[in-house]
């Protein structure tokens, strides 16, 4: 058969097109190729991007030390919770991953694996407040990695100059913030949204209430809730709040740069604050409000979970157990060598030298005595409704009673929905 020039070009063109399509549909998933030194199956492990230098290198080092599987680390910047939620719908997601949860919908949707058997003999050594939201239907769905808490940082010298004491009640906080505000420095920084996002249920617990009651109903169907939340509008109206800072509440920059005299921030910021301000700062829990009130700090934990769609669930569970239960040296290193977190294991937290003195010791005490963890039944839909209401109360001066009633209705509806479902 003679091959004409036209046929040759057509054939080669088709082959090129086929090749291009094959390449486009290839197996490049965009995954990194950082591999542990182990053999066996390959596990994909996901972490959200920690801001603390050295953390990424540390988790890669842990993975490299595992011998029973090859562990590939993905260090994921951006909106991690959304990324994992979407990835769990597919079989190409992670095998083992850290999660700010798992959420009730993820558990009920069968997206995560039961990890109860990993806790044999060690369950009591975990901080029970953070283990509770990982537990559903008598089973445990995530291994807490470290305990995080948030605190009110205050600048001692600025309070002394303004002749005010560290606030012990919410009313004192409002007055103190106002007294500390001048043309250059704001009194208080609760995040660029005025506190609606970060505070969450903290003010409700400070008023002696809760997000969800023991019997699964909205825990803030009480006049005290509206009374407490209304005080945040006073902070806003007094212009005591720092708003629109380049770095948000989770970063202590605004505090150490002197843009604010007090800031609500995480325990993780303590080393940076100490480095910048020395001893010119102190930490407090969120102050109590009302007769039934008590100081409150939120405690939470990212946990290590295993995807139910993983092809290597058994191996992924074994790795999670090895890293987050057996290897206590790694757990302490992860918690305290890079950032500043409380180890999830009580025995580790007790012996950690860095947590025994100064503001760190205060923080651990507040977390132990006044810590509250977001209940598992508090769904994202409840959170959005509550956050929107708090936003309107703070900035628009919306009627707190009306707003709280609407959130109570929404919350009770959600609670009915999730309690109807079977795990």
């Amino acid at each position: 058969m003679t091959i004409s020039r036209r046929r040759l070009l057509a054939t080669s063109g088709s082959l090129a097109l086929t090749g291009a399509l094959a390449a486009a549909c290839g197996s490049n998933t965009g995954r990194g190729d950082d591999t542990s030194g182990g053999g066996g199956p390959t596990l994909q492990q996901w972490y959200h991007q920690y801001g603390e230098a050295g953390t990424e290198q540390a988790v890669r080092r842990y993975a490299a030390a595992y011998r029973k599987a090859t562990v590939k680390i993905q260090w994921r910047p951006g909106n991690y919770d959304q990324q994992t939620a979407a990835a769990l719908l597919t079989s190409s997601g992670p095998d083992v991953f850290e999660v700010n949860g798992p959420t009730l919908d993820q558990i009920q949707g069968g997206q995560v694996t039961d990890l109860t058997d990993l806790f044999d003999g060690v369950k009591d050594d975990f901080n029970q407040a953070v283990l509770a939201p990982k537990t559903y239907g008598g089973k445990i769905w995530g291994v807490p990695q470290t305990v995080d808490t948030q605190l009110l940082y205050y600048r001692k010298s600025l309070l002394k100059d303004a002749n005010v004491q560290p606030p012990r009640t919410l009313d004192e906080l409002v007055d103190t913030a106002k007294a500390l505000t001048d043309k250059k420095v704001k009194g208080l920084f609760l995040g660029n949204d005025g506190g609606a996002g970060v505070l969450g249920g903290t003010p409700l617990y400070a008023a002696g209430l809760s997000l969800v009651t023991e019997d699964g109903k909205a825990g803030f169907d009480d006049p005290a809730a509206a009374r407490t939340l209304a005080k945040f509008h006073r902070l806003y109206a007094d212009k005591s709040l720092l708003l629109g800072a380049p770095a948000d509440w989770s970063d202590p920059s605004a505090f150490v740069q002197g843009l604010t005299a007090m800031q609500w921030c995480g325990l993780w910021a303590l080393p940076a604050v100490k480095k910048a301000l020395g001893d010119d700062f102190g930490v407090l829990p969120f102050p109590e409000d009302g007769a039934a009130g008590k100081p409150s700090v939120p405690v939470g934990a990212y946990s290590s979970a295993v995807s139910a769609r993983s092809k290597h669930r058994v191996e992924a569970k074994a790795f999670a157990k090895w890293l987050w239960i057996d290897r206590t040296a790694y757990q302490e290193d992860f918690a305290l060598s890079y950032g500043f977190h409380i180890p999830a294991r009580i025995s580790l937290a007790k012996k950690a030298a860095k947590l025994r003195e100064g503001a760190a010791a205060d923080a651990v005490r507040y977390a132990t005595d006044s810590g509250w963890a977001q209940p598992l039944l508090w769904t994202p839909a409840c959170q959005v409704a509550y956050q929107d209401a708090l936003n309107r109360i703070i900035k628009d001066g919306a009627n707190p009673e009306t707003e709280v009633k609407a959130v109570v209705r929404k919350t009770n509806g959600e609670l009915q929905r999730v309690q109807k479902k079977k795990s």
Partner: protein
Amino acid sequence: MSSSGYRRRSREGPVRNRTLWFWVFVGPFAAGLALFTYVPLLWSLYLSFFDAHNTVSPTHFVGLGNYTSMLSDGAFTSSLWTFAVFSLFIVPATYVLSLALALMVNRLRFAQSFFRSVFFLPAACSYVVASMIWKLSVFNGVRFGLANTVLGWFGADQTAWLSTTHPPWYWLVIVTLRLWLQAGFYMVLFLAGLQRIAPQLYEAAAVDGARPGWQVFRHITFPQLRATSVAVVLLLVINAFQAFDEFYNLLSDSRGYPPYARPPLVYLYYTALGQGQNLGLGSAGAVILALIIAVVTIVQARWFGLGRRED
């Protein structure tokens, strides 16, 4: 070989070849379009009739439940109204600004290409990057932000541009960003329209005694730009309803999004792809939004006479 047979082959051969090559070149893209656009669209429509929390293969049929939930959700309806108002403002503002820029550039006798490029350049800028510059540098809320520094020279207090709701300064940030990003692109469309207008029309108008400037613009230029104007307005309206990037990057934080200046797509994003992953409800919202955009577009096209033969 008979001559008629030869003729038949010569007629059919090229036709067969054309069909083959049509599918060789169009097929992959058609397949991609079907796979990545039409299948998800139909799947989304399917999901909208189910309770689909954290799953794309739900089993619990809820009929129109998601639609009624979405339409009775104050946050969703408020996002629709907010953005209807936003469209009513941003569409004419962008239209007027881009047309004015096009008229100015079109009149230039030198350096026209330079100015066209200068005005068009922001259109090449990423919405995310531009949002970050506006948020962290130009309109940050502390005393050393650019806007606050300038206002500080006149003794004004620092303003939290993105966090103040009374007055709603966040709209100033959003609108200026959007105008900066898109005016240049629409200016280029108008320039193309202006350059299609026959010079004889202007000559005839001059002979008839029309005064240059407003009179010529009103009676010659503007009517001749009708087709371009319709296209621009349609694109602007669709763009306004599809707003996502700059809003999300300006106003969201790690804890979510405030209840103000929340466009429908941002709300649906949090509903369907947030931690709640209510894909059924999100899909119902997406269908409602798509229908609204389609209706608005059709009404607008009828109103402006899109596709009507030019006189």
